[in-house]
């Protein structure tokens, strides 16, 4: 019997127990009101989406190209470091997004937490659901609707920094010349989303 065997035995990992304890931690954290940010990822036709929620509602949706790890670090800094992977807490969100992608949902019915967006940007985001499913509006039109017709650039910034893309439909905001313009999820994702909505 060598000491090595002893230490191997002592350092053996038990993934099943780790998973079980993680689930138990999430459950007690929820019960004690200590889970400030719950998150999960969801595979979709536009790649893996990070979904995060507070007790107020969905607080963040992020594309893979936005770097999920970085997004979680920001949530930890800006909302609370009490962040845990808790897929069950996002069941409804995930289901509605899946329904959106299979074409059976045109409006999201979810509590939203806009705390990551402030001021004029938030005003802009609040107008976006007015652009119906399958339609588009120009940055200029959105600026006008938000009450600041000259703030076309600011509308672009509001869309580019939308903490809740997809659910708050900044993908429906396009250029005045009809071209799609940029998108937080990448131009390709914007094309997929608008294509999906016009096909339905």
């Amino acid at each position: 019997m060598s000491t090595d065997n002893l230490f191997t035995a002592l350092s053996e990992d038990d993934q099943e127990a780790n998973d079980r304890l993680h689930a138990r931690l999430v459950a007690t954290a929820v019960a004690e009101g200590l889970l400030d940010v719950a998150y999960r990822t969801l595979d979709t036709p536009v790649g893996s989406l990070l979904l995060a929620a507070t007790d107020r509602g969905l607080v963040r949706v992020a594309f893979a190209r936005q770097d999920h790890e970085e997004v979680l670090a920001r949530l930890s800094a800006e909302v609370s470091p009490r962040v845990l992977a808790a897929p069950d807490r996002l069941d409804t969100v995930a289901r509605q997004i899946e329904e959106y992608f299979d074409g059976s949902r045109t409006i999201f019915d979810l509590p939203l937490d806009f705390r990551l967006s402030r001021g004029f940007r938030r005003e802009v985001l609040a107008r976006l659901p007015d652009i119906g499913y399958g339609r588009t509006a120009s940055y200029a039109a959105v600026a006008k609707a938000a009450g600041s017709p000259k703030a076309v650039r600011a509308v672009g910034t509001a869309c580019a920094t939308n903490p809740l893309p997809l659910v708050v439909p900044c993908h429906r905001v396009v250029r005045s010349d009809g071209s799609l313009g940029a998108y937080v999820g990448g131009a390709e994702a914007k094309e997929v989303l608008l294509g999906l909505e016009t096909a339905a």
Partner: protein
Amino acid sequence: MWPHGIRPKFFARPDSRSPDRARLPDVSLKPFEEIVAEHGPTVLRVCRAVLGPVEAEDAWSETFLAALRAYPDLRPNSNVEAWLVTIAHRKAIDQHRIRVRVPVPTGTLPEQPTDCAEPRMRDTDLWNALRALPLKQRQAVAYHHIAGMPYAEVARIVGNSEDASRRAAADGIKTLRRIYGEGASR
């Protein structure tokens, strides 16, 4: 308002609600999920070595719940593993008090097998052997050999000297080798 127009240093801190965004990731705490992923398995092994496989899960759960509660106040760049093991140590002591009203370390193997019902706990012999150690030795073995802490840190947590911790770990390992060796060579 302030003499000489200079605000006291105490008030000189910029508004904490508008932190410099670009520097945030360096100075702020990681998402707690990362703490669980990085240190959860080690803390579980420590709890198992000190308490045995069944009670370990209660101690682990209490440790991480307490850690989650206190986490926002933890200073960034703290030694998180030492922090967690310190909490686990206290929780394990509580568990141990509940379990053993009169803690008399005997140094002999218990007659009956442990109620080691965990299907994934492959090495019942090892847990039996650990159970035979006095608590101080189990702690020293767990904190030094499993959590990888220096003896000075082990001493700080258990509240004795560095030498005493080193001795406790050495004695523990010696006994473990003997008992576990016998069990494993069957």
